[in-house]
């Protein structure tokens, strides 16, 4: 026997002893051992060496040799492979390679194999301590949310308190920016969004799904009654029954139609954590099963992605801007900030809690001038002050063109920059001056469209032309309600063109409002959720860039090419066909590649596995979705949800998921990765959090990971799905994959729960966005986009456009469809296809409804479900015991309709009716009404999909027409409605 063989034999012998010792020391492990009686063999494939373990009645014994009929068998190719895999602190890549190269084979029933692997893996994790003892039986854990990281105080297995994180003495020091003789340093703590502080009420919500449910009149073996979805009640069933039904339906649908008949998608957001987010666990499972994915519309980015991209590229940011170093540049050099359709105090950038708020206090302190352009006197304007200009919704691009007109005619733009750093200006200039169509785009011309006085536009243009100005278009660079109007592409395009005229990238001339671009360390690697977590998905996530190399895992591939655009789910179901355009962050032309449903050779969708937040409040014309659910075309609907709300009420089987406080995860504050590269520069400190499993899952609920694992076991997929790992094992793998181990041990990190990334010294801070571009130098900002092939001349020189410059006349559009009336090659003003110019409709529905992202909730999180957030009067108003969604209406419009504050009103158009509580306010310009989108509740008063909603889904009213035909994007803010007093149910 060679030394290696001897070592193998000794290791196997030692394993039994180790299991016994640990079972003696850790009661939890002893309890685990008692849950199964199995025989597990570990051996070399050629049977020359091996040992089998007999687990019985909680005890383990073992024997050398080969068992004739073990329940589980783990076989190594040879002793070399075994030595690599069995050594403590093994390299995970060795493990993955052994599996992929068939050098390690594991056989047995999935649940027994998983049990054996968990038995082995637990040997490494037992006894690890986590959380901080606070005395009197209280333990303080850490978690992370979409609105900031938190301490979670737990007593007797129950959450008693959730607070922001205040740093201790050991945590990294903050940065300081010196500007105009002042020092600016953020406080050593994290901030949180209001819905984050409401999490306790959502965990212990009366609407929590605590056990699996089956619709009472759904019989998988008989009458399925699809027409009763959304109407019938539910009955409790066991997990086994629920999982058996879902697994057998998956098999049946694949057998009868193929995997393409299974459809799955997600909301735009999920509970926080790199493992639990919608791009991770969910994809790993569905890629393993095969499915028709629901492709996301570029939700919130519409105009930027379908429009601005063609002027300056930035597809990796879906058309948004670079943001590096802008906090320091703004504080030092900027004289005026123009907030255009930008309300960071409501939207927190995204995931940014109140980090930017702290910095915007400095704007006030420095006395920097501010202008706010928004039909709604938004929260940022209300707090910071400054001039408010309120264009009619969807007319912003007319205002922008008039600004350009003033700059051109009064010579208030950077002619040298335009001449050397841009292309195609002359053509646009001719259009602005009216040489192309005979209409000079004067301030007076725009007044007709926008309602903003010409003199105000002239004053703004002159001020802007003379002062070093930052433009913040949208709450971060990208976003903004104006980009979600019928003319949203033109608005976003105009924003780029205006900045190109002012010398984008020169000191004090850039994009932002201190929301992004803090001088934190962008060189420290920790993945964002869009890097795919444990998905193994190299195509549908950003995993291939960094994470895959750092966190080896089995790749997963969906073999189904068919897709359904999220905004066309109802058409796919009800009409059986639709078209879509991709959201492709790789390259500009990706968005032109039209696809059709059904794809050639693929079946139509028969099974819908819904997961995460409801679409009723977040997509458009959403009565369509309710109607689609009730179609016979859908043979089976399963919904995996935390709460009984929204779309969950339309499922045949409901699987109860737990919250992120009830499972393990790991994630960084505001780090989404992917399409907002380095998005954590919204934060004052980079804070990476080990999201402790603070409490046990409520009732019978399970984590998404566990639910999919249970299904995987029934499909023989448990090992490829889980790699034999628990969620905590995956957390450790992600910790190891990051730069954290260079600074903190796993043991310390697990115990303390968070790490504050040290900041770079001043001389190593990121360069300012676009400074390289303005000065015609190679790109020096730390992002890998554009990809090498998208540079025209030399790598790193210029932008992603064909010319490498900002293009006033877009070469990509000239190539694709130069005559597209909806998306001309230069930015033009095109009246909205739903608005004041649609005369007949406007007569019938004379109010323009805007429905921005909510301030107090986040998508459907925080709203409804007995959440504390409902107590906020600007969120919902309680009238006769019901919490109504709020619609804001100008006193003039309210008066004309006899509407008073807190009256219940019916908001309606041809698409539907929503009952809201009126808030009479001068914050909206006359003719416009404002109600947030994202109600979690959908409460039809009659037939679902065809009656008034009392839940507050104003997206029932918004148009389903694509922002431009050749796109997949919504224009929810081009929506005509009428409002009248509601007299109750008739």
């Amino acid at each position, binding site marked *: 026997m060679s030394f290696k063989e001897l070592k193998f034999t000794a290791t196997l012998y030692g394993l039994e002893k180790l299991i016994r010792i640990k079972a003696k020391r850790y009661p939890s492990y002893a309890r685990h051992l008692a849950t199964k009686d199995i025989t597990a063999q570990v051996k070399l494939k050629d049977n020359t060496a091996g040992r089998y373990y007999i687990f019985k009645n909680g005890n383990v014994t073992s024997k050398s040799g080969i068992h004739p009929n073990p329940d589980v068998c783990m076989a190594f190719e040879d002793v070399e492979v075994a030595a690599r895999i069995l050594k403590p602190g093994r390299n995970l890549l060795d493990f993955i390679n052994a599996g992929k190269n068939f050098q390690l084979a594991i056989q047995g029933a999935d649940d027994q194999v998983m049990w054996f692997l968990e038995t082995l893996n637990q040997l490494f994790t037992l006894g690890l301590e986590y959380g901080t003892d606070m005395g009197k039986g209280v333990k303080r854990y850490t978690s992370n949310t979409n609105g900031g990281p938190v301490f979670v105080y737990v007593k007797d297995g129950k959450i008693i308190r959730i607070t922001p994180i205040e740093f201790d003495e050991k945590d990294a020091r903050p940065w300081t920016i010196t500007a105009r003789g002042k020092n600016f340093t953020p406080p050593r703590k994290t901030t949180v969004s209001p819905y984050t502080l409401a999490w306790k009420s959502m965990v212990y919500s009366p609407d929590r799904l605590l056990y699996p449910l089956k619709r009472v009149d759904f019989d998988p073996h008989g009458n399925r009654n699809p027409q009763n979805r959304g109407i019938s009640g539910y009955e409790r069933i066991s997990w086994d029954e629920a999982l058996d039904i879902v697994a057998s339906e998956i098999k049946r649908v694949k057998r009868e139609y193929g995997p393409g008949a299974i459809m799955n998608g997600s909301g735009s957001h999920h509970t926080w954590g790199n493992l639990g987010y919608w791009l991770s666990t969910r994809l790993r499972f569905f890629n393993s099963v095969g499915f028709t994915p629901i492709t996301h519309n570029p939700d919130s980015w519409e105009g930027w992605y379908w429009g601005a991209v063609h002027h300056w590229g930035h597809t990796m940011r879906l058309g948004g801007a670079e943001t590096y170093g802008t906090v320091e540049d703004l504080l030092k050099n900027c004289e005026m900030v123009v907030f255009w359709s930008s309300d960071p105090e409501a939207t927190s950038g995204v995931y940014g809690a*109140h980090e930017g708020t702290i910095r915007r206090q400095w704007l006030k302190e420095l006395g920097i001038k501010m202008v706010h352009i928004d039909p709604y006197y938004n*929260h940022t304007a209300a707090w910071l002050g400054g001039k408010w200009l309120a264009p009619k919704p969807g007319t912003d691009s007319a205002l922008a063109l008039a600004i350009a007109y003033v700059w051109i005619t009064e010579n208030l733009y950077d002619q040298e920059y335009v001449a050397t750093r841009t292309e195609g200006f002359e053509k646009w200039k001719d259009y602005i001056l009216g040489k192309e169509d005979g209409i000079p785009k004067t301030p007076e011309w725009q007044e007709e469209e926008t309602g903003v006085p010409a003199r*105000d536009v002239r004053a703004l243009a002159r001020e802007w032309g003379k002062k070093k100005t930052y433009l913040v278009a949208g709450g971060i660079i990208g976003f903004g309600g104006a980009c979600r109007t019928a003319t949203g592409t033109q608005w976003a395009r105009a924003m780029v063109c205006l900045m190109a005229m002012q010398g984008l990238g020169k000191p004090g001339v850039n994009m932002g409002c201190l929301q992004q671009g803090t001088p934190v360390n962008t060189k420290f690697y920790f993945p964002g959720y869009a890097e795919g977590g444990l998905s193994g998905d190299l195509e549908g996530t950003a995993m291939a860039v960094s994470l895959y190399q750092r966190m080896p895992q089995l790749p997963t591939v969906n073999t189904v090419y068919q897709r359904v655009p999220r905004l066309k789910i109802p058409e796919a179901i009800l009409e059986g066909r639709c078209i879509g355009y991709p959201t492709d962050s790789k390259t500009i032309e990706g968005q032109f590649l039209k696809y059709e449903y059904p794809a050639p050779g693929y079946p139509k969708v028969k099974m819908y596995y819904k997961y995460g937040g409801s679409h009723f409040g977040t997509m458009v014309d959403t009565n369509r979705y309710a109607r689609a659910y009730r179609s016979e075309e859908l043979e089976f609907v399963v919904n995996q949800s935390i709460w009984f709300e929204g779309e969950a009420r339309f499922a045949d089987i409901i699987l109860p998921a737990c919250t992120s406080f009830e499972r393990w995860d790991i994630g960084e504050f505001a780090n989404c990765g992917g399409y907002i590269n380095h998005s954590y520069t919204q934060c004052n400190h980079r804070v990476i959090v080990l999201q402790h499993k603070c409490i046990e899952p409520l009732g019978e609920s399970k984590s998404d990971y566990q639910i999919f694992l249970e299904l995987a076991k029934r499909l023989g997929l448990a090992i490829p799905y889980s790699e034999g790992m628990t969620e905590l094992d995956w957390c450790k793998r992600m910790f190891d994959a990051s730069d954290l181990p260079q600074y903190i041990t796993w043991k310390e990190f697990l115990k303390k729960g968070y790490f504050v990334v040290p900041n770079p010294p001043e001389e190593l801070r990121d360069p300012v966005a676009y400074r390289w571009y303005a000065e015609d130098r190679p790109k020096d900002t730390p992002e890998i986009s554009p990809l090498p092939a998208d540079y025209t001349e030399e790598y790193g020189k210029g932008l992603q456009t064909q010319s490498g410059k900002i293009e006033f006349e877009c070469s990509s559009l000239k190539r694709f469809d130069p005559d597209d009336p909806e998306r001309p090659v230069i930015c033009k003003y095109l009246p909205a296809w739903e608005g004041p110019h649609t005369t007949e409709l406007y007569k019938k529905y004379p109010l323009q409804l805007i429905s921005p992202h909510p301030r107090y909730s986040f998508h459907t999180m925080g709203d409804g479900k007995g959440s504390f957030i409902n107590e906020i009067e600007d969120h919902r108003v309680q009238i006769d015991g019901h919490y109504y969604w709020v619609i804001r209406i100008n006193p003039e419009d309210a008066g004309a309709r006899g509407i008073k504050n807190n009256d219940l009103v019916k908001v309606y158009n041809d698409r539907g009716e929503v009952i809201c509580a009126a808030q009479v306010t001068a914050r909206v310009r006359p003719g416009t009404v404002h109600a947030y989108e994202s109600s979690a509740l959908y409460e039809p008063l009659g037939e679902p999909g065809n009656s008034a909603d009392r839940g507050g889904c104003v997206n029932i009213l918004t148009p389903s027409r694509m922002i431009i035909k050749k796109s997949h994007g919504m224009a929810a803010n081009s929506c005509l409605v009428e409002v009248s007093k509601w007299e109750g149910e008739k």
Partner: protein
Amino acid sequence: MTKRYYLIYDLAKCIGCHNCLMACKDEHVDNEWPGYTLPQPRHGHKWINIHRIERGQYPHIDVKYIARLCRHCDDAPCIKAAGGAIYKRPDGIVMIDPGKARGKKELTAACPYGMILWNEEREVPQKCTLCAHLIDQGWQKTRCVQACPTGALRLEKLTKEEMEHMINEEKLEVLDPGHDTSPGVYYKNLYLYNKCFISGSVAVEIEGKTECADGAKVILRQGQEEIAATTADCFGDFKFDALPRNSGLYIIEILFDGCEKKIIELELKNSLNVGTVFLT
């Protein structure tokens, strides 16, 4: 010198995020703090109540918030009314004894500020405790103060003299001073709530186009007395703030190079946007 706790709320710093209310509910709903307070009901109770304030008319408006909570008065009417069920701690915090106050719904009427609320389920009056249970454990901040992102809410522990100094220094005021209860809650920039403004825009005709009268001189008079003077900004906008409501007749004089002086008379009741004034 004995020190007591004071809560200070700055209207100019408050962004209306309601984190304070959320933190308060997080701390008190479903949690009983024995010796301090019973759990707060999930819905209905707002121990700190944030109210939106709107002043002016479109498009010259402003929107701020006012926080209302137990004032932890030094001369608290509730204590007088409670017969021992409500007491004052040496650190200034006014506490309701949940045992002694049980069933005493009438105590909700004892607070002139309306900040004592009735817990129907537990049959007990309740209110803000200034997180006394946490303070006694060594916390430096109440939950609402900790959750406030801008420092609009501050907790201070000061002697009477130190507080008086701060009141002068920062121009702090009490809300609803008429009740004369020596509150421990002070307000900064309270004019944003209890005073009003006069605003307007000035426009002129230049070379056939209407332009904003950047730099127009605007004087506010009451009778012959000049109250304030300002200069219109680049949008021609002017604003006089912190004027008392219902303060009678005012005269606005607007002067701009090459134009006739314009005089506007008005009676001020509440914040008023006089609209656009065209000079010729």
